């Protein structure tokens, strides 16, 4: 009987230690979510507010560049806006994970949604990166000429807004891994 009581005391200490570790993981996840939200919203805003109009014009070529002109950039803005809205909406859920103990089912839901968002964000960022690369370098074989030689500040801004999106992709991957580790822990 006494050995049983000692065992119970030991397991409760073990549970407390493990509870502390999961709490730290949950707090870290919460912070990562906030940082990823700021990254995606700033990427979306930066891309959506770039436009450049060159001071001359001819009949044949337009001299105004906007994110609306390239469908991949439009998709990028929409994807970043959707992911930033998702991150804000799941902040309360992440907060609940800090406080509550048995969080496995909601964590599984969060992993599923996070994976979908990683797919959306990565595809938006990658397609925008392909178009930005084409705008910088052009393509000799298809006679697609490099737009950046004329629209300098437009090109710089759209290249810069990609960085925030890529950082948010890495952060979302970290979030998925942390959620998986939290699910697999024994408590």
């Amino acid at each position: 009987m006494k050995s049983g009581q000692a065992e119970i005391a030991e397991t409760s200490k073990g549970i407390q230690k493990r509870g502390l570790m999961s709490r730290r993981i949950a707090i870290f996840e919460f912070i990562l979510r906030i940082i990823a939200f700021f990254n995606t919203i700033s990427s979306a805003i930066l891309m959506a507010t770039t436009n450049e109009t060159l001071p001359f014009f001819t009949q044949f070529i337009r001299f105004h560049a906007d994110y609306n002109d390239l469908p991949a950039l439009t998709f990028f803005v929409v994807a970043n806006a959707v992911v930033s809205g998702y991150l804000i909406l799941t902040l309360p859920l992440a907060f609940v994970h800090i406080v509550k103990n048995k969080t496995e089912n909601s964590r599984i839901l969060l992993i599923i949604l996070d994976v979908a968002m990683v797919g959306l964000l990565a595809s938006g960022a990658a397609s925008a990166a392909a178009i930005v690369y084409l705008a910088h370098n052009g393509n000799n074989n298809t006679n697609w000429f490099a737009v950046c030689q004329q629209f300098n500040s437009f090109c710089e801004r759209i290249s810069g807004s990609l960085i925030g999106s890529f950082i948010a992709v890495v952060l979302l991957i970290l979030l998925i891994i942390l959620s998986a580790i939290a699910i697999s822990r024994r408590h």
Partner: protein
Amino acid sequence: MAKESTTIEVGEPSTVTKSTSHVVVDEKKKKGFVAATAGGGYKRGLAIFDFLLRLAAIVTTITASSVMYTAEETLPFFTQFLQFQAGYDDFATFQFFVIAIAMVASYLVLSLPFSIVTIIRPLAAAPRLILLISDTVVVTLATSAAAAAAAIVYLAHNGNPNTNWLPICQQFGDFCQAVSSAVVASSIAVVFFIILIVISAIALKKH
């Protein structure tokens, strides 16, 4: 008094069936065994499904990579100004696509042993966790390769009037078809990957 007799009888071999505590121990062992196979049962099913999905994803990614690699077309006329040959290496994005999808396919082949381990030992968490972490990293690579190639394919189909980029699909019909089907195949592989990650996450749950 009754408790002392109970402790003595537990030490005897299992042919003694009269004491209640021995029946309790038997039931506990049975319950533990049943719980192990029950948890192992559905997890083993998930692991088998995971293995089959991995095989399907290997087939899909190898198809995508090889179709893009062999997509080539030469038009039967020529002028001084325009090239009339199209191959995957004319586009930097398609080169990235071929290499990235080939890397994804080799990762999937290398992850098959881990998947087999999760079938054999369904209650072990470490192989599943390793699979989930590496799957998440690789799904991002596959998604970005598929999306970048899709952006270029969209441009090749529709062009862009604002930047004077002409749609080349009107001339290179076969090349466009091959490249588009490679992009579709890699997108299907990405969907398989997402299902794989979700399966690993569900199977990580401990009871």
